[in-house]
């Protein structure tokens, strides 16, 4: 664990920044700006992952949260409304619901889990200690993803596969089956 005042300051700075950016995303009425700010928010989260020494997750967060998610949101916004309309009543009730859930989770974590930075994990311990002997891969995360828990990854691949088929089914009347789109 990286220790010291500098780390703590940096970490807390990025935590506060992520909250500020999240509030900005929610409050912006221009959805295009909101999507761009959401990209920055994803970047901050990626830095947080990196500071917590999870570079694998950080890499995924960068490519998905910054690249892919922004792109998909921008495409979706260009097809629909750019500026949010209507009342905000529903959104406030949703915010309260999520707030309640977050409070429950924070209390759970604060009361029942050990303090920040203490090693936990029984199975995780096994992975770290035995990965070189078992799989022979330096990247323990890769070994977990494709060897110890390869079946899960197959499932996730199927999720993506299914999702794309669903997208094709839903939009099949906009895009023909072959190369020629119906324009």
């Amino acid at each position, binding site marked *: 664990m990286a220790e010291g005042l500098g780390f703590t300051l940096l970490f807390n700075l990025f935590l506060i920044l992520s909250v500020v950016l999240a509030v900005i995303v929610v409050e912006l009425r221009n959805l295009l700006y909101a999507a761009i700010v959401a990209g920055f928010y994803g970047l901050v989260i990626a830095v947080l992952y990196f500071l917590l020494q999870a*570079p*694998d997750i950080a*890499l*995924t967060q960068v*490519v*998905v949260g910054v*690249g*892919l998610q922004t*792109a*998909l949101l921008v*495409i*979706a916004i*260009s*097809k*629909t409304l750019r500026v949010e309309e209507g009342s905000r009543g529903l959104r406030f009730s949703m915010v309260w619901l999520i707030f309640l859930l977050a409070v429950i989770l924070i209390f759970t974590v604060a009361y029942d889990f050990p303090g920040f930075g203490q090693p936990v994990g029984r199975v995780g311990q096994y992975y770290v200690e035995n990965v*070189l002997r078992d*799989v*022979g*891969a*330096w*990247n323990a*995360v*890769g*070994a977990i*993803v*494709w*060897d110890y828990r*390869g*079946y899960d*990854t*197959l499932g996730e*691949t*199927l999720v*993506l*596969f299914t999702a*794309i088929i669903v*997208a*094709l089914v839903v*939009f099949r009347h*906009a*895009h023909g089956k*072959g*190369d020629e*789109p119906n324009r």
Partner: protein
Amino acid sequence: MPTEKGMSLIVRTVARLLAPVMLLVAAYIVLHGHITHGGGFQGGVLVSCTLLLLIIAFGVDYVEAKVTFNFGQVFRSAGATAIILVALVGLVFGFWFFKNVGVYPYGFPGEVFSAGSLTLYNLAEMANVSASFLVAFYVLIRFRRRGK
């Protein structure tokens, strides 16, 4: 819709310069998936982001002429099938589904050709993920609201 015509010369030049670099990084992430951070998924997303950059810069027609919709479909299914096939090899030779059997190069930890089937899985996942998101981009960009 700007994605159908492409953008200005500056954007095109930058995209032309950036795209090979991004592909190189993606290849590194995928091929070194078992040694350093990342793997098939991250690399695949990066490849699809590169193609998205090209779509934005040069227009969707330009890119779709080079990498067709059907090619994406075939590539995507081939990736998913390859994962299952590699896993089935483990079932046939090693008794358990997904087992990392000695058929594949075991190598020395840290080499490019090591860790058995992990490299193959990463390559197949890269094919699946990159082509999947490409197909999704095509579908979404071509989509028009009804009645327009």
